[in-house]
């Protein structure tokens, strides 16, 4: 198919060495009217420097309140191919592993009913199928679900949980992030598909404090693998690193944030009581150092973006939780947190914002968590604290 619209500005972005999204849209445009008109619309945005999309319309698949996002062009007469251009969020498998057979199946459905354009993946983790019409939504869902795929979360619901690949190919995984993520996803299908919360709730699971999935910054509940006990040291491999040119004093000892390592050229020692498990030494000397063997997760809560009251990162609510199937302790905690959020949260209030509004101490009391120094950077600075009835001698 020849291109319907002239796109001199976009053509500029076909040049250069990095993979080009313009080439991708043009490839799809060989067989898709959606992609043809997307090119025209996008070229216009490049020329005028304004976007040409609008919200609007209530779209979805029957029974679900999530997984489909309505999208319309604001100039449909000029670009009828993208008059409707809805997004379908398909729940990715944990860890983003695929067989070619599975990917080809998705492509086939999408070539038949949609634009042929995707995002692999959205920032939440879903497979994003970009651009289809309202009347195709039910057929797409029937085709995908009959092949074993389901839609992801959107709206005031559990959002599609995601994770690093952890135990599948990483020696630092302290928890089986893929299994936990899959279990959470299956356990909370109703909460994902039928929005019932004040606002969105995201889970992200990282195998260790390197946090390749950025859970601490963008999940309402961040589950980060960690350990107790001593870092395992292979002194022979430490020497190999030294012989191969690593300046262990400068690159490891001096960069340990807790100053708990010593190295005299023959023995590498860690004062494990002082280690805060930042992962630096392990990451730099992966052959020589390995995490301790008592494994579990630190549970953190509350990250969100700056809108409206400023960005939050998640903070510790459970310093250490064993993570073994069927993950009952985790689910019980989550249910308690949601119950509290459901009771007090306002529309569009994230859990982190609610805790800020009603106070962390209220949260701890009502959810039944014991205060611990690991939950704070430092104790309070002011003397304005409260006592409850039972603290007062009558």
């Amino acid at each position, binding site marked *: 198919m020849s291109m319907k619209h002239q796109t001199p500005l976009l053509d500029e972005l076909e040049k250069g060495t*990095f993979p080009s999204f313009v080439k991708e849209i043009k*490839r799809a445009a060989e067989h898709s009217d959606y992609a043809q008109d*997307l090119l025209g619309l996008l070229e216009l945005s490049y020329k005028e420097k304004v976007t040409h999309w609008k919200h609007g319309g209530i779209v979805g698949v029957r029974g679900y309140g999530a997984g489909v996002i309505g999208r319309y062009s604001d100039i449909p007469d000029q670009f009828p191919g993208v008059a409707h251009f809805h997004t379908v969020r398909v729940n990715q*498998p944990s860890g983003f592993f695929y067989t070619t*057979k599975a990917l080809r199946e998705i492509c086939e459905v999408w070539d038949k009913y949609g634009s042929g354009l995707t995002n692999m993946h959205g920032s939440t983790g879903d497979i994003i199928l970009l651009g289809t019409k309202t009347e195709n939504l039910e057929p797409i869902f029937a085709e995908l679900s*009959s092949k074993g795929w*389901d839609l992801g979360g959107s709206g005031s619901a559990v959002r599609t949980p995601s994770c690093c690949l952890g135990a599948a*190919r990483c020696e630092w995984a302290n928890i089986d992030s893929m299994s936990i993520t899959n279990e959470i996803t299956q356990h909370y299908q109703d909460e994902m598909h039928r929005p019932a919360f004040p606002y969105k709730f995201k889970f992200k699971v990282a195998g260790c404090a390197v946090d390749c999935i950025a859970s*601490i910054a963008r999940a309402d509940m961040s589950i980060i693998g960690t350990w107790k006990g001593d870092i395992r040291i292979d002194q022979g491999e430490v020497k190999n690193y030294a012989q191969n040119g690593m300046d262990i004093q400068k690159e490891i000892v001096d960069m340990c944030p807790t100053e708990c390592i010593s190295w005299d050229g023959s023995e590498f020692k860690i004062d494990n009581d002082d280690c805060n498990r930042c992962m630096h030494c392990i990451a730099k000397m992966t052959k020589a150092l390995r995490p301790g063997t008592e494994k579990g997760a630190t549970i953190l809560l509350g990250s969100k973006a700056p*809108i409206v009251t400023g960005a939050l990162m998640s903070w510790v609510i459970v310093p250490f939780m064993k993570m073994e199937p069927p993950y009952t302790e985790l689910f019980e905690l989550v249910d308690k947190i949601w119950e509290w959020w459901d009771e007090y949260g306002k529309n569009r209030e994230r859990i982190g914002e609610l805790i800020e509004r009603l106070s962390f101490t209220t949260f701890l009391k009502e959810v039944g968590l014991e205060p611990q120094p690991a939950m704070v950077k430092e104790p309070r600075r002011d003397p304005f604290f409260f006592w409850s009835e039972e603290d007062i001698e009558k």
Partner: protein
Amino acid sequence: MSELPQRQTDIGPPHYEQFLPPVIQKNYGQWKYHEQLGPGHMVHVAESGDKIWTVRVASPRLLSTDTIKDMCDIADAHCDGHLRFTTRNNVEFMVDAESKVEPLMKALTDKDFLIGGIGPRISNVVHTQGWVHCHSAATDASGLVKALMDDLGDYFTTKTLPNKVRLAVACCVNMCGAVHCSDIALVGVHKTPPRIEHDRIKNMCEIPSTIASCPTSAISPDPQKKSVKIKLEKCMYCGNCYSVCPAMPIADPKNDGIAIVIGGKVSNLRSNPKFSKLAIPWLPNTPPRWNETVAAVRKILETYESGARKHERVGEWVDRIGWEKFFKITGLEFTLQHVDDFTFARETWRMAATFKW
């Protein structure tokens, strides 16, 4: 139309296990160490002695099904039909024998896939939808990423840096892509509040929902005009009201632009996770190549490259030298916009008499 298959609900995603390459299934949770062999190329070794080689290539994230099928062809020919994507939109091809690595890399380069992104380099860029798909976009995302990475591509494929540098692009302050914890991130910004088209509002918009749409409660009714008004000092140019009420356009081609924030990180390595902080409040929005923005990122990157110690991330480097020195050595202008006046402002002011000249 042909008969549709029976739909199913609440089945969740397919179980990941069926997608794992056999060597991963066998050694799941039993990995011992890994070695980086090249810019986009590493090997993981299991307790059993089994090994898996991974080759990482960049993708533009926005992929046509045709390109996905090309990837599948390569995975079928070389990787027994398995492949995976990374959290930063890269694609990883894995093989279970060293002899299979060269042919795989050749097949990938023959198809113009760019191999790299592992180690102390720039990996692929986390980004949002922009003009490709979003109504609030102040700038495009895919185009900015492309322009940036065409310029910085060497840092993906060959050159190294003191540590990883994570780049991100968000096309408006909603920042779907979580740019607020990146080493260097670009954010599309509006500089002007929405314009209220009083004549159109009457017909097009539901006033209560328009008022409710504003996250800062800046919008109030204007009964005389049967319209709304905006309290300017409260408006943070987020564009939410425009989503609900098309008669309140916020796009402003002359004033919309790009801010650069730097120094964030999410990992706990050495120092705690950090938010990114404002380096440049506004650069002009100049598609298709955004030369000013690309040049500014390069300047910050090169200053970091020459000044940081090995293993220091951008934020750790700046924390060590101090922000006052950062502005001095980059030559970036420090403006009123850099001084925080939002929720957590006070913590950012200098409550000490120590700083560098």
